């Protein structure tokens, strides 16, 4: 849901009037509206209302910033401010962002456009905006102290430059960067080619990767965490809070991924081969592309992958670092796999009523619905047609379907597999014998704790009832 709020009325008027006076010649009246967005659902692509035509992108669980044309210049208004972002149903985060959300709205322009961006600071400290990857005058580069003074709280600055070449970019503060990016300040930027047929695709998804360290039970990221983050997000959302990417069978699809975390992310797509068609530097010549199913997006990098959605189904799309597809977990929890709890469990239970053995058969919690600290998501969750997906973090699903409408981005539901195309339990049907399972040479069985049956089945929901009620 996008709404427009006037900057000259309402509660913001005082701040705006102060900020507007700094816009000098332009005058307060000419400051464009600062639209704000209150939902974390994916907004429909924003078709251009003026200027050169282009094929708009879809920001997964995000939105595109509307603009106005003023004397041939595209004017945008970003407001840097504290926001509350839902990471997934059941968890909210106190972040900093732009225009009501983190990440900020995607800015879409066309190659050659003159762009003017007003940036109002409603944060408690100064900020700036760096237009990551843009070729622009040095004084517009947004590096506090180096190319401009910081935008003080309550002030509005204006940036102006020509989007010189088509490609995929980001924006983020270059002032107290460590804190402000740990708080979620970032946004996406797409400069479309002058010729809309060039690099044209049917569906163009964009996403920023960011990471947070939010203690279970709390709301605000620990901004001094350097590496040991516990929430790995796509557009400040985690699975199962991420919408699926939808494509019609045969569509040409582009997914643009920018990395503003502090580590690399090997982005992996199931069921398809893709090519890296673009980087933050521009388009990769066709002759230089090679097929991949995983591409690494290093820190501060941008990768645009392209493929034909030629395989119907529900295909996983995720960072291949397995802990990046988990929600908050205890990093200091020891491994309990294979540990016999007989006797010990009773002792613990006497001291800690409600205690239940977990982890002795692995990390899977199956369908257990355990009470968790407030504002905490299960480590791995997500209900699929075959049960719990046991996923979190940087994970979503590419849904390829026949006969979707062109602009239809709605969730088509779970894939209906043709008969006989789903893995199934072998029950010894027919006269066919199970083929032998040769063992590795010199294989030794791992020591199993005495008295423990090697039963790896998940406990049934019925067994859990006692635990759900405490």
């Amino acid at each position, binding site marked *: 849901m996008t709404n427009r709020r006037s900057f000259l009325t309402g509660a913001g008027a005082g701040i705006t009037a102060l900020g507007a006076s700094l816009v000098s010649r332009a005058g307060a009246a000419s400051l464009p509206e600062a639209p704000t967005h209150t939902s974390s659902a994916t907004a429909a692509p924003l078709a251009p209302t003026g200027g050169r035509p282009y094929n708009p992108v879809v920001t997964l669980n995000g939105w595109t910033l509307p603009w106005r044309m003023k004397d041939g210049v595209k004017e945008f208004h970003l407001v840097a401010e504290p926001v509350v972002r839902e990471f997934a149903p059941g968890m909210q985060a106190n972040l900093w962002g732009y225009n009501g959300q983190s990440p900020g709205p995607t800015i879409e322009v066309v190659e050659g456009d003159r762009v003017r961006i007003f940036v109002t600071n409603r944060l408690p400290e100064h900020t700036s905006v760096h237009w990551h990857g843009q070729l622009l005058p040095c004084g517009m580069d947004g590096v506090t102290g180096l190319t401009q003074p910081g935008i003080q709280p309550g002030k509005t600055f204006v940036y102006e430059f020509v989007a010189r070449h088509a490609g995929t970019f980001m924006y983020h503060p270059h002032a107290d960067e460590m804190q402000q990016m740990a708080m979620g300040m970032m946004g996406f930027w797409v400069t479309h080619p002058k010729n809309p047929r060039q690099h044209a695709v049917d569906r163009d998804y964009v996403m920023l990767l960011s990471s947070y360290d939010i203690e279970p039970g709390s709301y605000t990221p620990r901004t001094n965490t350097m590496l040991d983050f516990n929430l790995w997000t796509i557009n400040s959302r985690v699975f199962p809070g991420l919408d699926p990417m939808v494509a019609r069978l045969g569509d040409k699809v582009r997914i643009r991924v920018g990395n503003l975390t502090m580590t690399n992310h090997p982005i992996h797509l199931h069921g398809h081969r893709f090519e890296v068609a673009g980087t933050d530097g521009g388009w990769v010549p066709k002759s230089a592309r090679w097929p991949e199913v995983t591409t690494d997006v290093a820190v501060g990098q941008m990768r645009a992958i392209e493929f034909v959605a030629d395989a119907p189904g529900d295909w996983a799309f995720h960072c291949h670092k397995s802990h990046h597809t988990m929600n*908050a977990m205890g990093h200091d929890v*020891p491994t*309990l796999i294979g540990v016999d709890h007989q*006797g010990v469990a009773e*002792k*613990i239970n006497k001291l800690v009523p409600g205690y239940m053995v*977990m982890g002795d058969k692995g990390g899977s919690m199956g369908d257990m619905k*355990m009470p968790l600290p407030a504002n*905490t998501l299960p*480590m791995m969750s997500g209900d699929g047609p075959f049960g719990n997906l046991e996923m979190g973090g940087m994970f979503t699903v590419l849904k390829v379907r026949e006969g979707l409408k062109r602009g239809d981005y709605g969730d088509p539901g779970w894939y209906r597999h043709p008969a006989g195309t789903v893995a199934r339990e072998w029950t010894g049907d027919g006269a066919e014998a199970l083929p032998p399972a040769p063992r590795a040479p010199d294989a030794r069985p791992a020591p199993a704790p005495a008295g423990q049956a090697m039963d790896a089945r998940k406990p049934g929901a019925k067994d859990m009832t006692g635990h759900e009620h405490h």
Partner: protein
Amino acid sequence: MASPISWHATLAVSLGLLLAGCASVTPERAFEASAAAAQARTGVDARLLRSDADRQALQAEIDTLLQAPLTQDAAVRIAALNHPGLQATYWEAGIAQADVAQAARLRNPGFGFSRMDGGGNRETERSVSIDLAGLLTMPLRQRMAARRLDETTLRVAAAIEHHVNATRRAWIEAVAARQALTYARQVADAADASSALMARMTQAGNASALDLARESAFHAEAGAGVLRADREANAAREHLTRQLGLWGKQALYKLPERLPDLPAAPAELAGIERTALSQRLDVQAARAAASGTAADLGLTRTTRFVNVLDLGYADKRETGEPKSDGYEIGLELPLFDWGGARVARAEAVYMQSLGQVAAVAVNARSEARAGYLGYRASYDVARHYRDQVIPLRKQIADETLLRYNGMLASPFELLADAREQAGAVHATIEALKDFWLAQVDLETAIGMRLPAPSPTDKKDTPQ
């Protein structure tokens, strides 16, 4: 010659009988005064055991009391009735009573008869003798014996009060020590579960020998803690057993598992110093001693009264409080018209006794104040633990379990928290124990029991 003798004899015998009728030799009567004084202060009925039947009845009563876990009131009752040392003390009243009776009697008259035959002569001599000196000093001896009886009555009452309060303290200590042992065991159990789990982890190859040694070391130390707590619980229990005067099978009594809960509100006491001066037996004894001194010295002509509390010390005034001397709170004793012979010594002896009363009274007032402040302060501490520390500990435990549920915390963290909880519970028990001890101290200092908690508090005070 015969007639004067028989006159004398008749006089002496009849006088003796007359005086003997004045003073009873029943020990109960003297003891009853002590018991009544003690009852007023401690709420406990003391009883003199005179016969085997009495003793058997008492044993049966004790057996009945011991069937349930021993409450503080039951402990105090048993101690007052059963403690052999205390029973021995009770007989002091009987002894003093007998002395009074004895002082009211003359020595039995003596009869002499001799006959001498020899050389044809026979000499017969008959004599009757009575204790004339005894007859003359009888009023003085009677008065002194009566005073000793009064003193003994007070002393026996004080002994009961002292023993009762000491028993209350011993009971509180014993129950608290037992409770502390329970929680020391909880710490040890948590350490046991930790080290057992770590042992299983080591067995499965998931932990190292160092991890196991660390957990085991903690377990071993927790075990030492249990041994220490056990020793303290035993010592405290034996102390109580001695106070109760129990032995044999009766010494196997059961104690409650926990101390009584904190009352909903502390007792509000007004005029504690006044209460202390009027109730405390030591103040009464000192005053009686001073009066006795005056009587012994034959001091009768009172010229004025002196407030012994004003001797050498100016009374404190507190804002908003009435001036706290005067008749109600002061202790007044007569001052005499000194004159005549042996004045200097009499005056010195009497003034010495006044000083002693003042000293006792000043101490009593200070102890009353200190007792009340200590009582209120320990109430606040115990309430702080009950209302602040324990709920927070509970919340920590709940939150830790939620984190364990989400695999955000390990079982070792759960167990470490269980150990820390036990630490807080231990401190809470100590605070509650200190409160109940402070209450006994306050009751000792003011010489009476605190009023029972108001009805709304009763749910919190099951004991």
